[in-house]
């Protein structure tokens, strides 16, 4: 066991040095790091619990997506019914998760069926061989045709919504100008936003919580808001409320959208030249500009409403046609609100509302305290363990301490290699590894002591000690490794950081026990050729 060939020794040393060096970039300043080539920039990322920041888990409202899909389907069916004169559009109704159309008395059910079947699209594009379609269209009897979106179609729609949402969330978060935010999908319908160094996430949450669906619509003047409140609401209009600044004043607004936020190309915060009030100026694309010009031309003297997420921001009267394709929104904003609205409009509307289902924010003060506590605990723990090992095993204790020190350096190296995240529980994992890594040395040394007591010679005791202990070391570490692996897969955030350092710690522990400790003891033996083992 103690015979290690020259090549093997070199390989062991090279591996150790390489892995250890991987941790080197962590000690460089940010500037120096930037000047290095990409491959050398790998370093440990501090978790949000250490550097401070916000972790926000959002969920896409899949019910809203479903509802919207059904409503779009209803509108499509009405269009088909109207275009083919199959009956009255009013005979198309939403029922649960389906849309139903009642063919008029004596109407041609077969014709309606075949026309409506054209709405069903094959799923998954041209290359898909599944043959699944987006809609089930069935004749349920009694002249009623039922159209139900298939499950795969709904799942696909939700997937698209999440993809779009991620892009929009990215644009909104990037506007905050923070360093290295990460935005990733989690599970089917969730988005994880992590923003390091954010002291107060209120503004971020504000930005993420808005759908930002902007529409320009006409105010319905056929009834007053009071009449509408009493229930006399025209079918093509709805009752919407004004902003808080306007005491949630009610408005009757036409459902028909003149121009929507999708046609905006730019939005910027600014100040009104006359009143000095904060405003948002915007610019339409060609399509939007043409439509806006047309509507304003036709409705001079009438009020129109700017509606954001079903809230009327303002309802100015059209004094003259707006032909230039640009305009401004004023609505008793604060500077911050005007800024945020501009950000939201530039980033675009979310396809469905997002809900915050989990938030974890750590302030920079606590993060710094945690780093200090973690480092202090690491040093004190390691020094106590090292002292104890030295008192117990003397020279061999020193060997063990060197192995453990290299072990820790290698853990940092492996973490850097994977750009892994170090959390406070992660630091705890390293401290625990220090306590447990010496176990492999203890196992070897105790076995050697036993063999010495059994009357063996120095070399034979060392040899037997190593060969018997290594099997045990492997067995005992695999159990802890299984626990760490499970923890890594079920855990998230800080806990995952713990599993990571614990798991890597076990690997490096086994590595150093099998190689470095052996190498050290072997070299020592070859140099001194002792008759007894000082253990």
């Amino acid at each position, binding site marked *: 066991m103690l015979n290690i060939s020259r090549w093997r020794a070199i390989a062991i040393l090279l591996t150790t040095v390489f892995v250890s060096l991987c941790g080197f970039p962590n000690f460089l300043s940010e500037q120096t790091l930037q000047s290095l080539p990409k491959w050398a920039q790998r370093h440990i990322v501090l978790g949000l619990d250490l550097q401070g920041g916000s972790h926000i888990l959002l969920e896409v409202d899949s019910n809203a997506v479903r509802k919207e899909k059904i409503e779009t389907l209803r509108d499509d069916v009405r269009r088909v019914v109207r275009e083919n004169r199959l009956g009255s559009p009013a005979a198309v109704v939403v029922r649960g998760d389906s849309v139903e159309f009642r063919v008029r008395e004596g109407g041609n059910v077969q014709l309606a069926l075949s026309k409506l079947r054209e709405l069903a699209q094959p799923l998954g594009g041209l290359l898909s061989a599944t043959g699944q379609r987006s809609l089930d269209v069935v004749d349920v009897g009694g002249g009623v045709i039922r159209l139900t979106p298939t499950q795969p179609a709904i799942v696909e729609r939700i997937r698209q919504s999440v993809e779009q949402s991620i892009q929009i969330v990215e644009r909104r978060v990037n506007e905050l100008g923070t360093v290295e935010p990460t935005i990733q999908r989690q599970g089917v319908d969730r988005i994880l936003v992590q923003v390091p160094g954010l002291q107060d996430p209120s503004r971020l949450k504000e930005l993420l919580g808005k759908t930002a669906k902007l529409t320009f619509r006409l105010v319905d003047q056929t009834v007053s808001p009071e009449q509408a409140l009493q229930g006399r609401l025209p079918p093509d209009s709805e009752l919407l409320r004004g902003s808080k600044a306007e005491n949630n004043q009610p408005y009757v607004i036409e459902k028909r959208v003149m121009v929507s936020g999708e046609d905006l190309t730019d939005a910027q915060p600014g100040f009104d030249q006359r009143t000095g009030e904060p405003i948002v100026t915007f610019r339409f694309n060609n399509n939007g500009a043409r439509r806006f010009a047309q509507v304003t031309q036709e409705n001079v003297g009438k009020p129109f409403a700017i509606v954001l997420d079903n809230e009327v921001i303002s309802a100015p009267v059209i004094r003259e046609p707006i032909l230039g394709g640009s305009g401004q929104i004023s609505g008793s904003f604060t500077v911050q609100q005007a800024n945020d609205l501009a950000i939201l409009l530039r980033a675009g509307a979310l396809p469905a509302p997002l809900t915050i289902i989990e938030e974890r924010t750590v302030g920079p003060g606590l993060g710094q305290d945690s780093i200090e506590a973690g480092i202090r605990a690491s040093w004190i723990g390691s020094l106590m363990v090292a002292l104890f090992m030295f008192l117990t095993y003397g020279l061999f204790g020193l060997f063990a301490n060197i192995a453990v020190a290299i072990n820790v350096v290698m853990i940092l190296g492996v973490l850097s290699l994977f750009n892994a995240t170090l959390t406070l529980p992660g630091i705890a994992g390293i401290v625990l590894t220090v306590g447990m890594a010496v176990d492999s040395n203890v196992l070897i040394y105790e076995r050697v002591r036993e063999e010495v*007591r059994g009357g063996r010679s120095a070399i034979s005791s060392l040899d037997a000690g190593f060969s018997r202990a290594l099997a045990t070391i492997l067995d005992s570490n695999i159990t802890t490794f299984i626990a760490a692996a499970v923890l890594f897969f079920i855990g998230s955030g800080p806990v995952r950081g713990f599993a990571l350092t614990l798991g890597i710690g076990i690997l490096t522990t086994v590595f150093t026990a099998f190689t470095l400790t052996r190498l050290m003891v072997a070299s020592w033996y070859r140099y001194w050729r002792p008759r007894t083992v000082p*253990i």
Partner: protein
Amino acid sequence: MRLLRIVPDDTKFDFMRFRRISFPISGILSVLAIVAYFTLGLNFGIDFIGGTLIEVQSRTGPADLARMRATLNALNLGDVQLQQFGAPTDVLIRIPQQPGGEGAQQEAVAKVRNALGAEVDYRRVEVVGPRVSGELLTYGIIGLMLAIVGILIYLWFRFEWQFALGAMIANVHDLVMTIGFMSLTQLDFDLSTIAALLTILGYSLNDTVVIYDRIREMLRRYKRLPMHELLNISVNATLSRSIITHVTVTLALLSLLIFGGPVIFSFTAAMTFGAVLVGAYTSIFIASPLLIYLGVGEGRETAAEEPEPSPADATRAQAKR
């Protein structure tokens, strides 16, 4: 230099006889732990029951808990708990899950921020909605199960089934004890506690496996030794190692407990209790004597008469190389 010998060489404690005391003690303690769990219950953190946790630091000297409590109780957020946390300026505020779904939790945080205003610094805000908390609990329990099963399968492959079963009983014993400890102390039981439980599991097994390894070796080498004696020799032979390793792990954990700060206190407390106090005891006084009852080593005499080269010879041969 005279080296430290915590355990004298060649101890000959009759650990196996001690099982007549240790088994009843463990039995009674396990029952007490279960009673504690059902009467006192675990102090579930927001990870598992949802709700909000806010750590604030007063900017004007020590925090006035009474005044803060009055301010927050006026918000009608249910049973709001305040607790001094670490330094006298730091206060931990716990707000129960608000009725009204995910959005209501965020509104509660906004209300608290408004009420406390600029007199405090927000060191930490954690909001876990109803849906996430349910999932975290499920994942935690599944994780524990998976780990136990995974380790069992591994042990089954490496040892005989009796060893795997013995290790599992010892394991469950450790977990029950630790849960009893968490109920008694009312320390926060959250996601990091699950991490602590998993670590205890791995660590306690680590210890058990070392002793089992030795027992297996002895079984191969001494075919005619009575089981009782064989187990005693194995435990005594590994005793020094068990104790030294426990000292080093305890040193590491104590340093975390004392210097690691309040954020990971309940995590390290659970781990210290489980790994150091229970884990050490279990592997020696529970896991090893259990093997007697599980019938390990029965029928060894017949095995010895098999013509194949015994594994013990192989070990010896390997040692000579």
